């Protein structure tokens, strides 16, 4: 622990605004109280530790722009985090979050939110989650979403949306309103159709990426996917597909079965 204290003292001395405390066996902010007095910090990286509680006092670091808590044991977040005036990048990937606090969507300038590999689903999102208009990248891979609320259409600046390896059975048509989207990861879900509105987006240019493998697609989509992604997008834009989609929705077929692959996720609470 003296090692951690030494790093903090050195950072204080050198007035370095960026603090790295990666893989230091830290299990609580109580072990690093002086951290909360370093008001000049712009980045704190606490990757690969064992922190389970994020102290509300962290929000006092009003100059913080990047907070990285990847691979910890965080189960709950303080509401105060959302009021941090300069926080642009928040990485909470690989934790044990099963809910987000009320009012979580109040971040004034958040641009990148990484919630990869947690236990989140649509009911864990607070009402204002999709009000973070400044968001340009949202990482929700390796979670338990079955549906994405239509309010996602509010994220007008979103360029990157990762929904890889969830339980999604459908996508909202509002995804077609994310005009700046250039990266969409929906591989490893239970999707069989896509909203035709997805065809509104420019996802086939050389500056765009769409990943959609490993889904139980209806035959015509699967066939186009064999030929290439641009063929899928062209197909979504066709009148034929609008008919196929309408018929599929009105048939109200049962959702494809849950995938079993991810049941061993380490973020799951131990039984």
């Amino acid at each position: 622990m003296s090692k951690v204290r030494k790093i903090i003292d050195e950072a204080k001395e050198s007035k370095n605004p960026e603090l790295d405390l990666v893989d230091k066996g830290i299990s609580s902010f109580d072990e690093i109280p002086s951290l909360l007095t370093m008001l000049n910090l712009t980045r704190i990286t606490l990757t690969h530790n064992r922190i389970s509680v994020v102290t509300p006092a962290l929000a006092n670091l009003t100059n913080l722009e990047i907070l990285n808590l990847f691979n910890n044991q965080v189960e709950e977040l303080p509401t105060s985090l959302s009021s941090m005036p300069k926080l642009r990048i928040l990485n909470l990937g690989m934790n044990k979050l099963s809910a987000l606090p009320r009012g979580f969507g109040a971040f004034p300038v958040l641009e990148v939110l990484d919630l990869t590999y947690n236990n989140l689903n649509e009911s864990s999102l607070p009402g204002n989650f999709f009000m973070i208009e400044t968001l340009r990248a949202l990482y929700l891979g390796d979670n338990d979403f079955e549906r994405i609320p239509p309010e996602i259409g509010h994220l007008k600046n979103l360029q990157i949306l990762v929904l890889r390896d969830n339980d999604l059975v459908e996508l909202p048509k509002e995804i077609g309103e994310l005009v700046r989207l250039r990266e969409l990861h929906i591989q490893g879900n239970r999707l069989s159709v896509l909203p035709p509105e997805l065809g509104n987006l420019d996802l086939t240019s050389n500056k765009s990426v769409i990943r959609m493998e490993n889904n139980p697609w209806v035959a015509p989509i699967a066939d186009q996917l064999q030929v290439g992604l641009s063929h899928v997008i062209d197909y979504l834009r066709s009148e034929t597909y609008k008919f196929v989609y309408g018929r599929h929705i009105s048939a109200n077929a049962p959702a494809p079965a849950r995938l079993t692959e991810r049941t061993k996720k380490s973020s799951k609470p131990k039984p």
Partner: protein
Amino acid sequence: MPPGDMYKNTQCVRCDYGFEPHEKIVNTNGELWHPQCFVCAQCFRSFPEGIFYEFEGRKYCEHDFQMLFAPCCGRCGEFIIGRVIKAMNANWHPKCFLCEMCDKELADQGFIRHQNKALCHDCNARAKAASLGKHVCHKCHSMIDDRPLRFRGEVYHPYHFNCSSCGIELNADAREVKSRPGFTANEMNELYCLRCHDKMGIPICGACRRPIEERVVTALGKHFHVEHFVCAKCEKPFLGNRHYEKKGLAYCETHYHQLFGNLCFVCNQVIGGDVFTALNKAWCVHHFACSVCDTKMSQKTKFYEFDLKPTCKKCFDKFPAELRKRLKKAYETSPRKSSAAN
């Protein structure tokens, strides 16, 4: 008969009483009046300088006659004595009835009513043309149905002119050339047919297709008016500022980076120096780092791709085994870029 007796059996037209001997009598056209009875039918005062006006058997002083019966001019509001122009539901002095556009007198040349305005023939043609979005030829004063030719600040039918070089009758594609660059007086201008004009070697603006008489910007293999060389996105002229070319179009710095993605993924700012591109993203060289532990990486550092984020080997090895297994499987089954390109 003594004087006075000749009126003995006569009486005043107005009051029917007789006249006293030696009394003053007014006689007009054989009618006799007491002087006090010979007054204006409206104001009962005697007629100034004996002038009266008669209307339907009554006599009026000039003032009351005009008040009651004379027309008022629709323009100056004064009474009209003499020639009255009746037009546009009003009365006018001939000098007051004017074309509402050019103030020409209309009394003798006639007028045309256009949208409740009295206009002369020329102005009517112009107004009609304007309401149809057309021009009136400055030479023949008739409407120009096809495209007009602009010359020395006026519009004309192109067929009134011939090419200054080859003499061919002009069409609307003809070009006006300022024969002495720098002189603004357009009396010096001459007209050329498009063919002759192109042979004269005057640069044509790649944006507006018009000749460039002043400063020329050369870019993208074309010439432009300084004010027409603009960002393809925001349409603001570069005016000498740096521009960026892409697929035959020019962009300002902000929009080039916004459109073509050279904003740093970490700081979201335009990348000033060298650009590090990978995973469909760009970074400032000093912002390229492992997305998990924020450790700086260089061009040469080997890294893994996780949701198109760079991940150093050390971090990737710390991922749960089941995740690494899934990622490996997905990587092996996903279509390769090389096969997609083929």
